[in-house]
Structures are given as C-alpha cells and as structure tokens.
C-alpha cells in the first residue's frame, strides 16, 4: 500500500474507532457474562475492522457493520472460543473495575429472566431494538435478513416475550393492537 493510502486507512480507522468504540463496548457489555470479556469483543471487532478497513461502509452503516462483526465474536465466545488477545490486556483490566455492578432484583431481573428463556434469535432482535435502539431496517442489516422478515420476527419475539413475562406474573394487555396470534409450531418457514 502506498504511504498516502496507508495514511487514509489509518485516519479512516481512527475516525471509525472514535465514533463507535462505546457503541461496540455497550453492545458487548450487554451480552457477555463478564465485563472483561467485553474488552476482548471490542478488541477483536476493531481488529477485524482495521484489517478490512476498505470494506467498512461509510456513515451510519459502519456501526451496523461493526455490530454484525461483534455479534459473531460474541457467538464464538459463547461457544467457548474465547480469544484473550494481548491487545486488550489493559482495557480488560480497566473494564473490570470501571463497569458498575447493577443492583439485584427489581423489574430488570424479571425481564432478564424472561429474556433468557427466549430463543437466541428472538432475544437478539429484542435487544438490538430495545438496547441498541435500532429500527427494524437497521436490525435487518446487522442480522443480514430481509427487512420484512425482521419486522415479522420482531413481532414474534414480542409475542413470545409477553408470554414469558406472563408466566412470571406480568400480564399482557389483550386489547393491544396486533394481538399475538397462536404459535403455529411449524418447523418450516422458521425464518419468517
């Protein structure tokens, strides 16, 4: 690569990192068991971005691209493929002490319990919508799904979440619009 191209790549990455580091950290902190693991997610995500800086889309789409990478990194972590890269040593150590410990109990515990009982796909769609604040079209980009499929999956995920909350004693409003249909239980077309 020419020095000029290298400079452009470095500036591009620095801007990307500055604009999105906390979004990716927040994404990771909300999904991993230990704050330290979030540091590794951030490191591996941005390492991927640096190595493929020419592919990262511009503008707001870059954050969705990063979320897509982070999602796969988190999935690999959950499968036991935890990469403790030395790159993240300092961040890992500091995240352990910097991240506040949430208070026990409360409605958050009930919601977390209900969420944990949902299938992974449903949980992730709800999290991207409610925690990262993504619109269905943006979620579709992160999950690489058609937009219409994402919308219907969001609807389905809400229906299932409502059922889980009801099982925990939090009732649903039967007069709400788009009253949840009965689950078909079909094994096919599950991607709908």
């Amino acid at each position, binding site marked *: 690569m020419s020095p000029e191209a290298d400079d452009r790549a470095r500036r591009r990455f620095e801007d990307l990192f500055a604009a999105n580091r906390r979004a990716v950290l927040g994404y990771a902190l909300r999904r991993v068991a230990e704050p330290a693991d979030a540091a590794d997610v951030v490191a591996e995500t941005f390492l991927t971005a640096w*190595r493929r800086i020419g592919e990262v889309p511009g503008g707001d789409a870059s954050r969705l691209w990063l979320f897509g990478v982070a999602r796969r990194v988190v999935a690999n972590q959950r499968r036991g*493929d935890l990469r403790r890269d030395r790159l993240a040593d300092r961040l890992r150590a*500091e995240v352990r002490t910097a991240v506040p410990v949430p208070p026990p109990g409360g409605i958050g515990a009930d919601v977390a319990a209900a969420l944990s009982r949902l299938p992974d796909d449903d949980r992730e769609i709800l999290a991207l919508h409610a925690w990262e604040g993504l619109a269905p079209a943006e979620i579709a980009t992160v999950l*690489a799904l*058609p937009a219409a499929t994402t919308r219907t999956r969001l609807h389905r995920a809400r229906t299932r979440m409502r059922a889980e909350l009801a099982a925990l004693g939090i009732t649903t409003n039967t007069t709400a619009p788009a009253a949840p249909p009965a689950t078909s239980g079909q094994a096919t077309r599950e991607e709908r």
Partner: protein
Amino acid sequence: MSVTDHDLDRLLAAATPITNREVAALQLDSAEEALRDAIMRAGDATAKRPQWTSRARRERPRRLRSVIVASSLVGLAAAGTTIGVFRLGSGAQPAWAAEAIRVANEAPRLLLASDWRLADANEFTGPEGEVQFKRGRQEVSLNWRRGTDYAVYVADRARSSHWRRAITVLGRPASLFRYDDPTGRPTDDYTVLWRVGDHTLELRSIASSPAAFEALLGSLHEVDVDTWLSAMPENVVKPSGRAAAITAMLADIPIPPGVDVEALKTRTQIKDRYQLGAEVTGAVACAWLDRWLVAVHGGDTPAREAAETALAGSRRWAILLEMQAPGDWPEVLWGYADVATGAAAPPKGMTRVEYVAQTSTDGLGCG
C-alpha cells in the same frame, strides 16, 4: 401490569444491563486509545478489498435444517413443475425472460443428486443468494456471495471447528469444517466453503459422518441456464413472473393514488412469494395510512372514511390470508389497520395518529 408492544419496548429498554449514558461515562479513554494503537500496529490494513456483504452466519441449527443455499438448483423433482410464467413461447426449447437469464448467468448454477428438490429460495440476485434443498426430512443449504473475502469466511468457520479438512468440490480446492458444540465436541453439522470465479460458495448440512457429507458433495454438478431456471420452486417468483404475480395479488386490493404499481412490477429481484407479498401489501397499506393521516390532520372526513374502509378491508385481502400460515406479516399489517380504523386501541399514552405516524416506519417500512 399490562404490557402492550409500546410498553414492552419501554420495559426492555429500562432493563438494559447498562445504559448508553453509563457506557459513555466509563473512564476508559486511555485504555481504549492504547487498544486502538495496538490494533494498528498489529494488523495489516488494506485500503482496497472486494466489498464484503456483512451477511452474518446463521446460528447453528439445533436440528436438521437447511442453512443457506446459493444459486444452484436441483432440476430433479422440479422436472414436473410447471413454471409457465418463466417461459416464453412454446416448443421443446423454452425461451426464458431476459432478466431471468441475466440472473442465471451471474450466479453459479449447481444441482445436487436427482432425489434432492429445491424447496425454498429467499431473495437473491445473480451476485448473491440462498436456496434450500430437501430430501425427506433432510435439508441442505447453499449460498453464494460474489466479491467476498474467501479467507475471512474460512477463518470465521475455523473458529467454531476443531476438525477441518482440505478437499475438492467440483475440482476446486475447498475447506470442509465440522462444527463443535459449546463444549468443543464435534457435532454432525458440516459446512464446506469453496470458490467459483469470484463467488464464495458455502454448502451446509447435517450428515451422519464426514464420508456421508462428502458423498452429498459428490453429487453436486453444474447445469445450464435452462435446467437451473426450471428447477426453481413454485413459490419463487421469477423476474418475468413478477408483474403477473403482483397483478394477481392486487386484484382484490384497493390501490390509492401514489402507489407506483409499474415500478413495483419492474424490479428484477427474485423473491419468494411471501417476501413479494410483504413488499406489495406494505406499499399499499403505507399509502392508505399516509392518506388517513393527511385526512385526519385536515379534517377531511370523506377521505378519512375512504382510507379506513380500505384498511378495514385488508382483513380480506387474499394475499394476506395466504401469508398467514407461513409468517406474521399479516398480523403486523392488520395491527396498524385496526388502530387506524378504531378496531383496536393504540398503546397507552399514544393517540391513534401518533401510533401510526411514529411507528409505521419501523413496523411496515413506510416512508
């Protein structure tokens, strides 16, 4: 406590493990800068790479399920399938519509053994797509992506697999992986990656053994455009069939001014019928909801009533009734129709107008 969709979203947001504000306040700037600098020293940046379509790998299926299928189609059981809208003219050698030929020419055209039928196809164009094959209860998915970084995909699959073998697929070098479970033990879930021209292809399936999976691969064969197009399942609406399919879908649907039906018909993306139905009904419903909003704001009672009548009628649109079984799109659309017509209440704290105006973009893709 009552939980509507709106309340549910707020409940979930309030239960976030850590808020964006809390994340922003973390005292980690120095450590992050150190990470950034270490990354730039450690990695190799290349300014120019082929465009990588950030298509996330699907979660590993917990049971036999097709993953993603590429442009190859099995002409097997499809031999008896009538794909009239795809063929032009008559005679032994059908003439395919130009757009269909264009898509077929751009995509790799592979089929499995004759006992595998092409069961499903999502949206795809020549450069990228997925299809699924089925044989009884067995499923195979194959996908293709053009211009992607093959090495990145190989590295990605390797992270979830301790078992890997270099093989050949149709004479081309390929990487075969056997996925691990969370404890690191091998499963019966296999995937293979290989390149055809500038496409990266991936075929994934459950198999009883590596040999069984390789036997499946051994049945892959390249076919011509005619065979490939003939193998499309009936639920796939080919480009040349799109206009006719849309005309039929709209037969019992009132179309307000502002819906560019001709533009809908001329798009060349291949979709399955469900996705096309969502696109078409979404365009019409959004247009009626827009007219309803304008009418309410302007105090135009006749226009408001006309929109409400049209939206109430959506419960009888044949395409939506057909789509009920395979997915939830109709329920989403009817939810908005019900609020606009007054058949259902909006979430607590929102008026009907606010609910439609503020959430229909997310819910239906309006605007």
